[in-house]
């Protein structure tokens, strides 16, 4: 008798646990955004990169200084990987002397002018698509999305291109209100993740 009662309870328990497991797993597996893709020119080797110029990034976000914040993070990250980066003030001076109209989208002629002036192998440019706190259905989370492009200073060809985003709130933040990464931490992480694809 005890065995029968126990067996029924066990079956019911296993059913309930299966259902709960399904419900718990579903939020984890859903939201199937494809993996971040990037491009590296086949004949390009990062070891040939000795000196680069990081141009001011185009800022499409609501934060007026997002472009500069990400640019600084990119410079720091490149320097930490052993690549010599031209001082931002020197770049501004070169852009002024070359009378560049759009600082984020240089023509091949302008790139060649920069190469002559600053002695750089490549120019890193790009844009910040989002930089700020976004509100989801149940949580607020930092959202940072960037696009970085490395251009060959001599020919103007694209050597490397990457688009990266931080994504939304994680499972623990959404369901248990766990404290997620701050906006600055997220930005650093996104920049690091993007630069990692180059090295």
């Amino acid at each position: 008798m005890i065995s029968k009662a126990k067996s029924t309870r066990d079956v019911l328990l296993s059913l309930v646990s299966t259902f709960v497991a399904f419900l718990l797993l579903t939020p984890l597996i859903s939201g199937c955004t494809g993996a971040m893709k990037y491009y590296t020119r086949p004949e390009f080797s990062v070891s040939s990169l000795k000196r680069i110029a990081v141009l001011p990034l185009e800022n499409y976000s609501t934060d007026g200084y997002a472009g500069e914040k990400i640019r600084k993070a990119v410079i720091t990250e490149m320097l930490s990987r052993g690549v010599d980066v031209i001082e931002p003030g020197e770049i501004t001076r070169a852009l002024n002397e070359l009378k560049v109209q759009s600082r984020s989208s240089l023509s091949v002629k302008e790139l060649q002018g920069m190469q002559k002036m600053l002695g750089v192998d490549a120019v890193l440019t790009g844009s910040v698509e989002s930089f700020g706190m976004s509100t989801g259905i149940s949580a607020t989370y930092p959202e940072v999305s960037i696009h970085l492009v490395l251009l060959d200073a001599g020919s103007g060809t694209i050597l490397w291109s990457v688009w990266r985003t931080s994504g939304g709130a994680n499972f623990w933040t959404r369901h248990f209100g766990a404290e997620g990464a701050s906006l600055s931490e997220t930005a650093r992480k996104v920049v690091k993740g993007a630069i990692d694809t180059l090295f």
Partner: protein
Amino acid sequence: MKENIRQIRRSRLSQAKMYNGYIMTDKRYLRMKLLRNSFLLGAILIVFAGSGCRSGGVSTFHVRQDMDFSFIKRVAVLPLDNLTNERFAGDIVRQMVISELLATGLVDVVVPGEVVAAVDKLGTRSISSLTADQIKSLGSTLKVQAFILGSVEKFGETRIGNTTAPEISITLMMADASSGSIIWSATRTTGGASFMARHFGARSDTMSESVLKVVREALNTLMKY
């Protein structure tokens, strides 16, 4: 009375059998089996109905069947028309298109600055209304086989019930640089939070992820060719 109850229990136990290590009667076993199957079916249905990989977006595309796309090795992405209230929607989607095209590894993309310089040189007022001759002229200047042009029709958050979710709608086209004719076009719209996101707090796409998804899905219709 007690004896009667004992007899009933004894008779039931005598009918009981071992099922998967549990002692049950046939009737109870079948009932449990039915219950278990309906639970599993329910759970599977919920997963399918509300999974994040739903094909909720709307997509239409056209490809010129007599066209051989393998000759296209280098393309230029023109600035997209921004038909939204979001100031940089066109630029954001354009950057994404460039990034995704490069990531496929199938085509080389002209530096955006070079495209701007060539368009300026052409002296055209609107990039959205280029004539076939202008496209041909741009093609020879930039040494490309095709152009990507298009527009962003919707870019922002939309409110559905008590939740908000990204809503994006784009149209991308490819123009043949030698003839100036449109050889591919795709419209892709996505929007709204999934069932699981709305009801169970599942992860929903951020704005950037939605843009990526829309662009990737639109370009995928071209990559097949």
